[in-house]
C-alpha cells in the first residue's frame, strides 16, 4: 500500500445517501481478474444521467468525493474501492460508511473521513467552487474559507495509512502466536476441523 498523508483538491459534491456498491461499480464489471481499469465502470448508472458531477469538467480529476449517510452499503466487493481509486479518488467524506466498505477503502489507501451532516452540508457548498484539504496527520478537513473540521480515525489504521504498512506482512510476524492458538484449539476442540467427505 502506498503511504498517504494529505489529499488536496476539488471534490465531487455528490451528497447522496445510501450510495451502494452496485452504484459505485455494477456487477457486470466484477468479471475481471485484475484490480485495475475499473474506473471506466465507476458510478455507471449515475454517469448515464446528463449533468452528473463525475462528467462535469468543473470537477474533472477531483481526488475527493462528498456523500451522504451510509456510503458504500451493500456488497463486500473491493472492486468498489478499486474503481474509485482508479478514477483518481483518494478520500471520501460522508456522515457514515458501511463497515465493509471502509475496511476495503483502508486496504487500498482510500481515506474514509466521517464528519457530521452540518460539516458535509458546508463542504458541499465549498466544493461547488473551491478545493478542500484533507490532512490525515492532523486529522482535519479544511477549506480556503477558514473552515476546519476535525475527524476521528482508528490509530492503527492511521499508522498503516501514513506508513503504507503491508498488513499481511505485519500479521505474519505473529505466526508463532497463531500456531500456539491452533495447537490449543486442536487439543480443546479437535472436532473443529471439517470431517473429510
Amino acid at each position, binding site marked *: 500500500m502506498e503511504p498517504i498523508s494529505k489529499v488536496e483538491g476539488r471534490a465531487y459534491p455528490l*451528497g*447522496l*445517501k*445510501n450510495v*451502494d456498491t*452496485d*452504484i459505485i461499480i*455494477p*456487477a*457486470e464489471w*466484477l*468479471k*475481471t*481478474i*485484475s*484490480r485495475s481499469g475499473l474506473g471506466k465502470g465507476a458510478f*455507471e*448508472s449515475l454517469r448515464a444521467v446528463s449533468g452528473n458531477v463525475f462528467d462535469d469538467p468543473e470537477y474533472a480529476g477531483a481526488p475527493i468525493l462528498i456523500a*451522504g*449517510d*451510509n456510503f458504500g*452499503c*451493500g*456488497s*463486500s*466487493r*473491493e*472492486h468498489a*474501492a478499486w474503481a474509485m481509486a482508479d478514477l483518481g479518488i483518494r478520500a471520501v467524506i460522508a456522515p*457514515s460508511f*458501511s*463497515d*465493509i466498505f471502509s*475496511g*476495503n477503502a483502508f*486496504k*487500498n489507501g482510500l481515506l474514509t473521513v466521517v464528519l457530521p*451532516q452540518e460539516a458535509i452540508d458546508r463542504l458541499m457548498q465549498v466544493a461547488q467552487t473551491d478545493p478542500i484539504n484533507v490532512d490525515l496527520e492532523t486529522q482535519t478537513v479544511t477549506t480556503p474559507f477558514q473552515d476546519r473540521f476535525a475527524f476521528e480515525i*482508528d*490509530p*492503527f489504521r492511521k499508522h498503516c495509512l501514513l506508513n503504507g504498512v503491508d*498488513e*499481511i506482512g*505485519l*500479521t*505474519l510476524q*505473529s*505466526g508463532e*502466536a*497463531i500456531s500456539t*492458538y*491452533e495447537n490449543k484449539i486442536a487439543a480443546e*476442540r*479437535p*472436532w*473443529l*476441523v*471439517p*470431517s473429510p*467427505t
Partner: protein
Amino acid sequence: MSTPQTLYEKIWNAHVVERRDDGTCLIFIDRHLVHEVTSPQAFEGLRAAGRAVRRPDLTLAVPDHNLPTTARLDSTGKRIPIADPESAQQLAALEKNAPEFGIRYIDATDAMQGIVHVVGPEQGFSLPGTTIVCGDSHTACHGGLGALAFGIGTSEVEHVLATQTLQLKQSKSMEVRIEGEVGPGVSAKDIVLHITGVLGAAGGSGYVIEYTGSVIRNLSMEGRLTVSNMAIEHGARAGLIAPDDVTFEYLKDRPMAPRGADWDAAMAYWRSLRTDPGALYDKVVVIDAADIAPSVTWGTSPEDVLPITGVVPSPDSFSDASKQAAAQKSLDYMGLTPGTAMTDVEVQNIFIGSCTNSRIEDLRAAAAVLKGRRKAANVKWAIVVPGSGLVKRQAEAEGLDRIFIEAGFEWREPGCSACLGMNPDKVPPGERCASTSNRNFVGRQGPGARTHLLSPSMAAAAAVTGRLTDVRELID
C-alpha cells in the same frame, strides 16, 4: 462468578489470538468460503508474494456468482462451455487456483455445488460458534447457525488465505427481540424485511446483531438463515441466532459436521453458546410480531419496506430533506406514483432463488401457492433457481419441479442467478421483478431493472396474478 457475556462476546473471546493495546485483535478464522468473483486478485497477491494458504483444510471453494444457471452438461455428459469469455476466465481461475493452493473445490457439475451460503450449512462446513468469512457480504447468513459470519473484501480474503486470521476491532452488540406470534402468510423473509424497515439500511452499522425472542426461536433452520442473511441489509456486520435443538437437528449427519464422539463433544460446547442472563447489549430493539405483515419493497434500498396492503409513499411523508430527495429518486427509478396501492403494481418477471430464499423450505412455500395454478399472461419470465444441487434433487424428489414447470416457471441449475446481474439471468431495463433476493439497488438485477423484494410465497402469488399480491388471498 464471571461477568455475564453475550453470545457475540463468547464467540469473539474464543477466537482472540492476540490483543493489542488499542483494542485491535487478531481473530482466528475457522471457516473460509471462496468463490470465483472476489478471489482471483487474492490468489494473484499470494503468488506475487510467494505465500501459501495457511489452512487449506479450513477453506472451501465453490463457483456460484458468475455461473449460468442453464444446463451444464450436454446430452453426452460433456461440459457446456461458458459463453461469456470474462466469466469463463474467472471461473477457470478458481478451478485452477483451488488445487494449486491445496483447497477443496466443488465443481459446477457436482451435486454439492450451489450458492456458497447454501452449501456451507448444507454440508455441515458451517458450524455454531465458529468464525466464518467469505468475500461476499451475505456471509452474514451463516449467523443463523450461531456462527460469527461476515463478508470481507478481497484484500482480507488474501489476508485470511495467508494467515487464517483477520485484524479486527470488536463491534458493538445489538439485540433485536421479536416476541409474539406472526400471522398467516408471514415468513422469515417478511420478518427480516420488517426489521430492515424498522432499523433502516444503516441502523445496524457498527453492530453485530443477535436476533432473539419467541418468533426467532420458532423459526426453522432455513428461516433463521434467511433472517441472518439480510443482517447486512440493515447495515450490521453480522447477525447471530443462538443455536438450539433446531440447529443441532439440522446439522446432525451433514457430511462435514463432526461425527460420533466428536459430535457429542461439539454439542456440549454448542450448548454453552447463548447469551448469559444479565449480559448487556449496547442497544436493544423490541419488535412486536403482530406488526409484521407479508411485506414488499417499493424503492431502491432494502429499508423501503411496506406491508403488501400499503400504498406507494409520497416523498413529502419523509422527515428530512435528504430522505425526501432519496425517495423521489427511488420513485423515479421505480416508475411508481405516490398513492398507488402496492397490489396494483404489475410485474413482468419473477425470480425465486438467491442465498436468502433458495432452500428447500422456500421452494416448498412457493410451490404450495403455485400448485394447480399458472403464471399470469403478463408475466414474461419466471425462474426458480435452487440454492444447490442437493436442494434441486430434494425438490425433484418431492415433485416440486413439476409444479413450477406446470405453472410456467423455468427450473434452473444452482447459482446466484438474477440476484445480482453478473451472469446471463437479468431483468430487462424498465421491467419489474418480484424477487426473493436481498437487494433492490438501482441496476442490481440488470441495468434499469426494477426490483421488488418479497418472500417465496409472495413471489409465487405475484406470478399467479401478474401483480404484487397479498399471498393471504391465495392461501386458506
